[in-house]
């Protein structure tokens, strides 16, 4: 311990290597880790100090230290079933979106990876390009397509398929369409990166051993692309749980999403402790998927080098 202190105080540790590590590390600690601690801290702020939620939790009165922690916000969330319903509903929409992205994205990435190498780059560019154009504007575009006087309804009316406009906007349907649309490239890209690297000799071997293409696909291709499937699914699932912009523009009153609740607690009700408590629970909810994502990221970096 003493040795460590001397080591620290004499700045002998301050080599180039430490500076190179220290700069990004310090930055991340300050703007990523410390803010979470503050959120947690404010979520348990006392009512009396609600006007000043940044006041100290720890107070010294007559030499006795008291730690005031207020769990009222958490109790309120636990008692009001609307919060539980909203968390569940956010998870449900995120899972449905992830599955649909996988359903559309897997065959897409598969066929893209099996395309001729000369056109592969173009195909890839075409997936990336919407990703580069504004996310907000692309979601807004769906509003124009799905509105009751929108493009799709006009088309169906003109074709005579329907007689009165369908209510498509502000429904679970429009919410899921918007989320699938926005997050599909996040599913396709890791899947493609994985499938394009796959050794075709495995597939040939399976065929030589008498496996049908369908069987080969399920027994060889899919298991080999497991890490791509996990990466893509986490890249879609985790941000979808807390999505705000899409539910706000395309969702309706029945599509409960926790991102919107957080936003309203913060911007409309100005209840910062409550918004913080909602956030803390949301973080707990995505902790496991985040850990899975992290493990995958580590493997990518370690294995690829």
């Amino acid at each position, binding site marked *: 311990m003493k040795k460590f202190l001397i080591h620290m105080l004499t700045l002998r540790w301050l080599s180039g290597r430490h500076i190179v590590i220290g700069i*990004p590390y310090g930055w991340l600690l300050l703007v*990523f880790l410390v803010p979470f601690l503050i959120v947690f801290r404010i979520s348990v702020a006392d009512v009396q100090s609600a006007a000043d939620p940044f006041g100290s939790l720890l107070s010294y009165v007559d030499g006795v230290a008291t730690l005031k922690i207020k769990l009222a916000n958490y109790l309120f969330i636990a008692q009001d079933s609307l919060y539980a319903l909203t968390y569940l509903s956010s998870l449900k929409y995120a899972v449905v979106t992830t599955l649909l992205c996988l359903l559309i994205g897997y065959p897409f990435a598969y066929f893209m990876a099996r395309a001729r190498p000369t056109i592969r780059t173009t195909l890839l560019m075409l997936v990336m390009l919407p990703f580069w154009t504004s996310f907000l504007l692309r979601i807004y575009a769906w509003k124009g397509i799905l509105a009751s006087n929108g493009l799709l309804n006009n088309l169906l009316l003109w074709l005579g398929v329907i007689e009165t406009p369908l209510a498509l906007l502000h429904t679970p349907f429009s919410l899921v369409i918007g989320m699938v649309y926005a997050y599909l490239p996040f599913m396709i890209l890791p899947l493609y990166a994985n499938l394009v690297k796959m050794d075709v000799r495995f597939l040939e071997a399976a065929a030589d051993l008498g496996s049908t293409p369908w069987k080969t696909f399920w027994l060889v291709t899919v298991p080999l692309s497991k890490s791509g499937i996990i990466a893509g699914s986490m890249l879609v699932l985790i941000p979808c749980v807390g999505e705000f912009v899409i539910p706000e523009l395309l969702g309706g009153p029945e599509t409960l999403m926790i991102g919107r609740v957080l936003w309203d607690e913060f911007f409309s009700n100005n209840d910062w402790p409550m918004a913080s408590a909602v956030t803390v629970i949301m973080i707990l909810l995505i902790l496991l998927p985040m850990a899975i994502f992290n493990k995958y990221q580590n493997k990518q970096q370690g294995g690829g080098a």
Partner: protein
Amino acid sequence: MKGRIKGRIDGYRWFGRSWLSATYLFLYIPIVVLIVFSFNSSRQSMEWSGFSLQWYASLMDDAEIISGFVLSLKIAVLTAFASVILGTFAAFVLNRYRRFAGRTLFNSMVSAPLVMPEVIIGLSLLLLMVSMQRLLGFPERGLFTIWIAHSLLGMAYATVVVQSRLREMDKSLEEAAMDLGCKPHQIFFLVTLPNITPALLSAWLLTFTLSLDDVVLSAFLSGPGSSTMPIVIFSRARLGLDPRVNAIATLTILAVSIGVLASSLYIARAERQRQKQIVAATRNVSQ
């Protein structure tokens, strides 16, 4: 027998092509719709009533949009530089320093913003800024705070881009420089940096567009009078359809397409030249 296999392969091809085309249609139809209806003369935006440029003209007198655009542009340029610098540091650390205390934590902190819902990052960063302001009287909410938030997000993306480039890079170049007596910082600036320039450029562009597009972080961290363009667009899109938004969309899409096309051509050319130089260099050595 042969005919049956051929039929099956044709069927497979046909299925593959239709799957790809259908998905591309899904990805591009909304964009085409946005562009087409920006030229619509009617305010009832989804009914075509003739070609008009009035929405583009009205953008010119839209003070809210123009000031939002200027602010967004400033933040995006600052963000792109900060993200590329921080991302290069982080990528270098992750790629070169296999073992150091707290590597796991560092790794998770770098990649977490890639997937973390933006509302969480936005709220927690705002609370940090407010706490700091109470303690130090700094910073005011506005350009600076939005810049910090965007740089946190941008750094995560820049790290991924730069890191994949560092991984592909030929380590023997750096080893050669070291054998020839270069100091670590000389190796970095003279050997590593020129080699990863294309990645730095694409990371710059990616983080620039990310920043230009962000709504949630900006909304949490903006103060009075510092509405970025996406905040203005978002508040209008919330109210309903607005053909001026389509006009902005068309201009953005045009600018982005030109930017992406030009930079990918440039990167491809730089890459070819580098390969040529490597081939030439190895030829000289072997002769």
